[in-house]
C-alpha cells in the first residue's frame, strides 16, 4: 500500500485545522448530527462490515456484532444521551465568603486529533475513540490498521458518506504513512497497539508536546479458585473459554493470556476446558483466523521450544495454509520461555499451577502490569487482597472481557499496558481540555493585598491566617477587615 504524497497530507491537515478554527465542530448540533450519522452507518452498513471482517479475519458475523457493531451502537447511544450534560461543565466550589465570584470547569475540544486503530477489532477500535473525539468537538484523522485492509477500505469509503468530510478524515496506508502523520503537530494522539510502536508514537509526540493516550497490551492472567458448585464451575469455564478463544480467537488485548490454577484442581479444569471447547467450536467457522502469516509464524515458534512443546496437554496442531492453530492448552511451560514472557495474542493457553491459589499475588509482583486481571472466586478476602496487592488496568471478578461493555468504568492500562482511559464519559474527558474559569467582580477589594508591604500587614496576616486558608482568602477578597 503506497503512501500519500506529503503535499496531500499537508493540505489535508491544513483543511482540518481550518475547519476546527471555524468553530464548526464545537456546536452541540454538529456533534449530535455526526453521532446520529454514525448510528445510521452502523445500521445501514452492517452487512458490509460483516463482509469486511470476514475477509480480514474470518470473524463470524455474530462475533462481529457482539464485539464490534453492537458495542458501538451502545456507545453512540450512550454518548447521544449524555452529550448535553458532558458539555455543560461543572461548577467548582469556592468559599461562600468569596461570593459573588464563581468558578467552573468548562470542557473545550483539544483541536485536531490523530487516532491510530488496530487490526483485531478494526471497526470497533476505530469508531469507539472516534465517538469520544467527536463528542468532545474535535476534528479527527483516523488511521486504520493496514493489516485489516478490507476494514480499512470500508472506513475510507463510508466515513465520508456519513460524516462531515471537512472534519473527519480517514487516511489509509502502511507504516510509512503512520510515520508521516506523526510528523505533524496534533492536539492529541490516541494509539491502540503494541508497546513497541507506542514508544515511537510517544517519542514523536514529545517533539510537539502533544499529549497521548496509549492503549497497549500485556499478559492478562485469569485466576481460577476452587468453586464448590459444578454450575459455577461450568459458568466460570464458559467465561474462561470465551475470554480466551471467543474474541478474535485470542488476538485481543484484554483476552485471557494464561491461567493460574491450584495443583489439585488442574485436571478437573483441563477436562472442563476440553469439553467446553468442543461444545463451543464444533466448526472452524466459529474461530477467527490468525491474522497474518507473520503472526502465525510467531505463534508457531512459541511452541517450538521442546520443553514448551512437551507441556502441551491439548491441541497443538497447526495448519499453515489456513493460518489456523487449534485451541491449545499447556501446563507449566518454563517460566522463562517466550510463551510465558511475551504477550501470546493467540489461541495458546498456558496453565500455571500453584500450591495455593493466593500465591499468584507473589507471582504477579514485579511483573509488567497487564491491561486486566481476571479472578474466578467466591473468597471475599482473596478478592480484597487482589484489589489491594496487584495492579492492572482493571480487575474483573468472575468474568472476562465484559468490562469492555461497561460505559461507567474507565477502560485503559497502567504501566506497561499504557495510560489514558476511555469509554463513556471518560472518552469525552480524554479528548477535552477541562478549562477552569474563575470569575470575579470589582466590588470586593481590600488594600491589604497590595504593596507597599510593611510589618503590620504581615503581622495582621499571620494573625488572621491562624484560622485557615479560606480565612486568608476572605481577607484577600476584602470581606474581612
Amino acid at each position: 500500500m503506497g503512501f500519500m504524497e506529503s503535499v496531500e497530507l499537508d493540505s489535508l491537515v491544513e483543511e482540518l485545522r481550518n475547519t476546527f478554527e471555524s468553530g464548526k465542530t464545537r456546536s452541540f448540533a454538529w456533534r449530535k448530527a455526526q453521532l446520529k450519522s454514525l448510528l445510521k452507518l452502523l445500521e445501514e452498513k452492517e452487512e458490509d462490515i460483516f463482509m469486511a471482517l470476514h475477509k480480514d479475519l474470518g470473524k463470524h458475523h455474530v462475533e462481529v456484532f457482539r464485539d464490534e457493531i453492537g458495542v458501538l451502537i451502545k456507545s453512540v447511544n450512550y454518548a447521544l444521551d449524555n452529550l448535553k450534560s458532558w458539555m455543560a461543565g461543572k461548577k467548582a466550589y469556592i468559599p461562600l465568603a468569596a461570593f459573588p465570584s464563581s468558578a467552573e470547569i468548562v470542557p473545550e475540544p483539544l483541536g485536531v486529533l490523530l487516532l491510530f486503530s488496530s487490526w483485531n477489532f478494526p471497526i470497533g477500535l476505530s469508531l469507539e475513540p472516534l465517538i469520544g473525539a467527536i463528542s468532545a468537538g474535535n476534528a479527527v484523522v483516523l488511521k486504520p490498521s493496514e493489516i485489516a485492509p478490507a476494514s480499512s477500505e470500508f472506513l475510507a469509503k463510508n466515513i465520508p458518506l456519513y460524516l462531515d468530510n471537512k472534519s473527519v478524515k480517514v487516511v489509509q496506508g502502511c507504516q510509512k504513512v503512520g510515520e508521516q502523520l506523526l510528523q505533524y503537530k496534533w492536539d492529541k494522539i490516541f494509539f491502540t497497539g503494541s508497546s513497541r510502536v507506542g514508544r515511537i508514537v510517544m517519542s514523536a509526540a514529545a517533539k510537539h508536546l502533544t499529549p497521548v493516550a496509549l492503549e497497549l497490551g500485556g499478559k492478562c492472567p485469569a485466576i481460577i479458585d476452587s468453586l464448590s458448585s459444578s454450575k459455577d464451575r461450568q459458568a466460570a469455564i464458559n467465561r474462561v473459554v470465551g475470554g480466551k478463544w471467543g474474541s478474535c480467537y485470542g488476538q485481543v488485548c484484554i483476552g485471557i493470556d494464561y491461567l493460574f490454577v491450584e495443583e489439585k484442581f488442574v485436571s478437573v479444569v483441563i477436562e472442563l476446558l476440553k469439553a467446553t471447547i468442543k461444545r463451543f467450536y464444533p466448526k472452524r467457522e466459529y474461530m477467527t483466523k490468525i491474522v497474518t502469516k507473520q503472526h502465525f509464524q510467531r505463534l508457531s515458534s512459541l511452541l517450538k521450544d521442546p520443553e514448551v512443546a512437551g507441556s502441551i496437554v491439548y491441541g497443538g496442531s497447526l495448519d499453515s495454509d489456513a493460518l489456523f492453530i487449534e485451541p491449545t492448552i499447556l501446563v507449566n511451560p518454563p517460566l522463562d520461555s517466550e510463551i510465558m514472557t511475551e504477550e501470546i495474542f493467540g489461541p495458546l493457553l498456558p496453565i500455571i499451577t500453584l500450591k495455593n491459589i493466593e500465591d499468584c499475588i507473589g507471582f504477579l509482583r514485579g511483573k509488567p502490569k497487564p491491561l486486566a486481571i481476571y479472578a474466578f472466586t467466591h473468597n471475599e478476602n482473596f478478592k480484597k487482597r487482589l484489589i489491594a496487592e496487584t495492579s492492572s488496568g482493571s480487575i474483573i471478578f468472575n468474568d472476562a472481557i465484559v468490562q469492555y461493555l461497561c460505559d461507567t468504568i474507565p477502560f485503559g492500562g497502567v504501566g506497561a499496558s499504557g495510560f489514558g482511559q476511555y469509554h463513556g464519559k471518560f472518552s469525552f474527558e480524554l479528548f477535552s481540555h477541562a478549562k477552569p474559569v474563575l470569575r470575579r467582580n470589582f466590588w470586593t477589594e481590600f488594600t491589604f493585598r497590595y504593596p507597599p508591604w510593611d510589618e503590620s500587614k504581615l503581622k495582621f496576616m499571620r494573625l488572621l491566617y491562624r484560622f485557615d486558608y479560606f480565612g486568608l482568602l476572605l481577607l484577600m477578597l476584602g470581606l474581612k477587615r
Partner: protein
Amino acid sequence: MGVEMEENRGAFDGHRAAELMAELREAFGSGRTRSYEWRVAQLKALFRMIDEKEAEIMAALYSDLAKPELEAFLHEVSLTRSACQLALKELKRWMKPEKVSSSITTFPSSSEIVSEPLGVVLIISAWNYPFILSLDPVIGAIAAGNAVVLKPSEVAPATSSFFARTLPAYLDSSAIRVVEGAVSETTALLEQKWDKILYTGNSKVGRIVMAAAAKYLTPVVLELGGKSPVVVDSNVNLEVAVKRIIVGKWGCNNGQACIAPDYIITTKSFAPKLVEALKSTLEKFYGEDPLESKDLSRIVNSNHFARLTRLLDEDKVYGKIIYGGQRDEKKLKISPTLLFDVPHDSLIMKEEIFGPILPIITVDKVEESFDIINSRTKPLAAYLFTKDKILEEKFVNNVSSGGMLINDVALHLANPNLPFGGVGESGIGAYHGKFSFDAFSHKKAVLHRSFGGEAPARYPPYTLKKQRILKALLSGDIISLVLALLGWPRS
C-alpha cells in the same frame, strides 16, 4: 532516619540513579507507602516542618530570589501549608473507592473505581516558586501513596539545599528522597524507569522530559509556561483592574511566574487612560525609585538578567519604553517597565518574558484581541477585565488556555477545587487539591460479576436466535430482549 548525604558519595550518576531506583522500588514494593497511616504521618510531618522551619524557609527564599517576606509567606509557605491541610482533611475520602452504576449489558454486576498509587514517581521542580512547586506535587504524590524523588531546581540553591537537609529529618527517607543537582543529575534520573514524572519548567526541557519518558511509556504531567495575555476592555473599574494587574505581575516574584500577565491587549482609544492608571499605581506601590523598593523580588540570576535586558535593548523595542527601564546589574534588579505598541515580531512578543517588563499592544476593537491570542500557542492562563457579560462569554468560549480568570489575575491557582495545568504548548495534565491525588493515582476499574446471569447467547455456536438476543441486549431494549429470549420473532 538514617540517611547518607548524597554529596559524600561522589557525583550522582547513572549508577547512583539506578541504585536509588532499586531502593525506592523495594520500599514501594513493601507496601509501606500505601497505608493511610503512613500517608497521614508524612503529611503531618510536612506540616510540622513548615511550622517549625518557617524562618529558615523564608531566609532561603530571600537568598534565592530576594522575595519580599509577605510574598514568600503568602504565595509559598501558606499555600503549601493549606495544600497539606487539605490533603489531611480529605485523604480518607479521596482514597475511598468510587461506586459507579453498572450497565444492563453486564447485569448482574457491580462496579467501582479504585485509586491506587502508581509506584515510584519523579518530581522536577522550578526555581521561581522553589518551595511550593516542589512540595505541592510531593504532597499529591504522598497522598496517593507513592514513593517519591524530588529534584529541586539548582537555580534556587538555598531552597534546594534546605530540602536536601531538612526533608530527611521529617519524612520517611526510605521512600521519599531529594536529589540535588543540575543537568547531568537530572539526565541520570531521567534514564530510570519512573511510574510518573511531573515536571515544572520551560517547554524546551519539557520536550526532553517527555522524550525520556517515552522510552519507558511513562505518563507525564508537564507544567510549562507561555505568554499569558491580559485583555483590558474599556468597560471596567479601572482603578481596581490596574491594582490587580500590577500585583499579579510584579507582586508575583516580579513577573517571574508562569501565570504572571505577560502582555496587555487593549483598545487604541482606552490605552492612554490605562497607561496613566498603571503609571500612577506603580508609583504608589513601589515608590519613585522602584530599584530601591523592598517589595520586589530581584531577577534570579545574571543569565536571566542578561536575557531580559536583551529583550529591552532590541532596536525595535528600545524606543517604546514609556515607564521604567532602569536596571542595576550588580543587584540584579530591573524596575517595573511598561512598553507601548511594540512590533508583534519583536523578541519580547515572541518569547515568554518572565520578568518585570509589560508590553501593551493595541487593537481597534477589543474582540480583535481574541484573534491575536488564538494566533499564538495556547498560554497557561488568559485574563480578561470587563463588565460586559457578552464579551466575557465570547472570551470563555473562544479563547483556549490552561486556565482563565475574569477580572482578576493569578488567583485561580489558589483554589484547590480547580485543576491547575496547561494545554498545548503550555503543558499536559493538571494538579492541585484532589487533582494532585488523581494525577499520581491509577484509577483501576473493578467489576464484580456473579455466576448467575449466564447468557448462552454470548457463546458459540452462533445461531440466529443468539444474534437477536445480543442485538436486543446491546441496545438496552428490554422488551426486544424478553421477546428474543422467548424465541420471537419465529424464523
